[in-house]
């Protein structure tokens, strides 16, 4: 026993010195992904005198809120190896429900908001049941929900927007400012708060641990005695709750629930997640990355508009920059 274990000790000692750099490197990597954002940001700051100022930066942050919220929930689903296409129209349906609760049924705002968020959870629950129990592939299950939610939003609202004119407090949720005198939109603070919650859930709780584990190797996770189906249902439900929050955020920003919108938001949310370094095959990802991904998208959108690039070129440039950014990120990770 002694001889081999001495040898092994030596072996074990070997990787140690390189482990600390490895962690530092990981920090640095996140910093560099953030660095990518900074590069884009710096570019626009130099290219346009109107880009870097308090007002515009707040605009960028405000523009990030809805996609960011959706992307947070989507992060969990993607890390667990799934996908959620229903968050866009699901958000519209939740907005309509908020209108129904608050304007049509006259509920107090806090109750209406709570019920809306829970309704989002219900959408997610149905997705989760379809995926985990009926074993319908996530793409199909959530595509079906995308269609159904979009239709239901129209049915419930009778295809008409629902306004929150009677409850001015509702609009304050999004664009009011509780920081006195700062003129800083609440919804950005809310995004920050739920991002922290999401970050804690992902990296500090068993929910996050199992999300990673299921996405990395579902079979092995099940063999470790973990109730994979149950956790999948929870993960989709969680994404649904974020969808509900996004429904509140967008309808309070607009002061109305627009039943026909939402389509396309899901792709942007997924894009934010993937640009942020989460792997679509599951098992890898982070909340910080997702936020950076969402910010990169809105900084690019804002910057290109500020620079008055003709709009048909904006998408062309956006496409190229996204490929380049992700390529640079991949290349860096490979050499690192």
């Amino acid at each position: 026993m002694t001889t081999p274990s001495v040898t092994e000790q030596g072996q074990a000692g070997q990787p140690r010195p390189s482990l600390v750099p490895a962690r530092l490197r990981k920090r640095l990597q996140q910093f560099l992904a953030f660095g990518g954002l900074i590069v884009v940001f710096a570019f626009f700051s130099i290219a346009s005198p109107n880009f870097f100022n308090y007002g515009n930066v707040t605009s960028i942050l405000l523009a990030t809120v809805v996609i960011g919220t959706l992307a947070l929930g989507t992060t969990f689903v993607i890390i667990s190896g799934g996908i959620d296409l229903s968050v866009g129209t699901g958000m519209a349906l939740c907005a309509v429900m908020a209108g129904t609760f608050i304007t049509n049924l006259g509920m107090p705002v806090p109750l209406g908001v709570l019920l809306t968020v829970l309704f989002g959870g219900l959408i997610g629950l149905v997705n989760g049941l379809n995926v985990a129990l009926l074993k319908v592939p996530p793409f199909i299950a959530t595509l079906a929900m995308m269609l159904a939610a979009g239709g239901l939003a129209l049915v419930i609202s009778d295809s008409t927007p629902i306004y929150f004119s009677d409850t001015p407090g509702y609009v304050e949720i999004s664009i009011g400012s509780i920081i006195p005198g700062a003129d800083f939109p609440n919804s950005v603070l809310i995004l920050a708060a739920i991002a922290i919650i999401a970050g804690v859930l992902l990296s500090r709780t068993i929910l996050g641990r199992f999300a990673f584990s299921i996405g990395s190797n579902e079979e092995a996770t099940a063999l470790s005695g973990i109730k994979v189906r149950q956790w999948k249902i929870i993960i989709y439900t969680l994404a649904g709750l974020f969808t509900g929050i996004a429904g509140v955020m967008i309808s309070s920003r607009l002061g109305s629930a627009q039943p026909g919108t939402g389509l396309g938001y899901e792709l942007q949310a997924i894009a934010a997640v993937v640009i942020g370094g989460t792997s679509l095959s599951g098992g890898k990802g982070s909340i910080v990355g997702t936020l950076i991904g969402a910010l990169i998208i809105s900084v690019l959108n804002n910057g290109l508009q500020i620079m008055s690039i003709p709009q048909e070129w904006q998408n062309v440039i956006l496409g190229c920059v996204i490929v380049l950014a992700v390529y640079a990120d991949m290349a860096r990770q490979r050499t690192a």
Partner: protein
Amino acid sequence: MPLDAQAPDSGRRALLEAWGVVKNFPGVKALQDMHLELRHGEVLALVGENGAGKSTLMKLLTGVYSPDEGQFLLHGEPLEVSGPRQALERGISIIHQEFNLVPDLTIAQNIFLGREPRYGGLLLREGELNARAQELIDSLQLPLDPRQVVGTLSVARQQMVEIAKALSFDAKVLIMDEPTAALNDAEVRVLHELIRRFVRPDTGVIYISHRLEELKAIADRITVIRDGRYIETLDTPTTTVQDVISRMVGRELAGDARPENVRDDRHVMLSVRGMSTKALLEDVGFDLMEGEILGFAGLMGAGRTEVARALVGADKMASGSVTLRGRPVHIASPADAAKHRIGYLSEDRKQLGLLVEQAVESNIGLSALQELFQTLGFVKDRAVRETAERYVGDLAIKTPSVALTTKNLSGGNQQKVVIAKWLVKDCDVLIFDEPTRGIDVGAKEEIYQLLNELARRGKSIIMISSELPEVLRLSHRVVVMSEGRVTGVLSAAEAGEENVMHLATMRFIGDR
């Protein structure tokens, strides 16, 4: 036919029993009237040919599959497990033959997956988790860092994680399905020590292995099964390896002990000089002769796999040159290597060797598809099928049909499929990385003969193996590595266990 099986100890029931267990898969009778009895405080070895049904029996025990007929008893009470969780709750812990680790999690996270220390049921105590893992690893004296991500570990280290995980449960019954397949002799000794420490009067171990020599050292009794049937249980002290083999395969095997001679006037086929990689290798150099079997020996992590991967272009070489038939070649990818007729059979068959979801014939035909089985891009399905069927016959691959999904083959038979793939390709240089991993004695012998036959036909073979006897038995020359360097090249006549181990444990402290 079962002799002592009929009458269990009347006084004290065994720890774990299986009676009349039957399991059928579509087209396969995996188990028929299977019997097993694990006594308190013993290590029971379970042996049988590839596809005999060992893993299937263990999967039934741990609730991965459910039996068609029969029952299990734990402490004399009926045992019914509907899933892995229940098995663990009843004190049955298993190391599966195919790895079941989560590659993106760290070692500590894998070991305690589902049993993480928490605050209030939800919040993780990561520090505690790592500390506990470190404690466990220290107590097991394994060379692992709990914070390392499992996906970056070599196969041998992953095996150690599996072992640590299985031992971390407070289990009464520990099942190990080929735990030593990826380990070398030194590591095997460590594992045996662990098992001995685990066995107490109220526990027991079921130990599956194809390395029959090691059973003497670890097993109290040996249960032999064949073709899904119980054959006999032997007491180790009164049993020879030959006894076990003859019951396993139902006949005697002849094993010739030394490699065949090669003429030394053959020319050099492949020559490697100054090969280094960023990760580990340093100035590796060796020659491979035409018609030679060149063995690679070394401890885990010595860098043998890395040499092979760098050679075929799967990993990047930082520096070094490769000469093939006297001409310098540049190999940037496995496709380049294949073009130069160099084939590499990986040690990690599930991740790197097989398309587990595809048919056996697709796997066997894969490497040579473009070369042999197409005209104008159209696949010659008949030819693929016939070739696959021929190799299934030649290598005795146990499968109902070549159209079967490879996933459903037993571990050893999957390994044979990988070997068949490279035999079809007809390479001049073949690199076999742990080719007999998980293969039964009978089939091993067939593979040895096959390697000899290939060498006789002028093929050059690099054989990496963690089983030193195997290296010594086959190799015309042995390259020994340690810590990424070649520490010696021995001729067949020079090579013996002791001097190889001496070279394999050479250290280079403070060099890098």
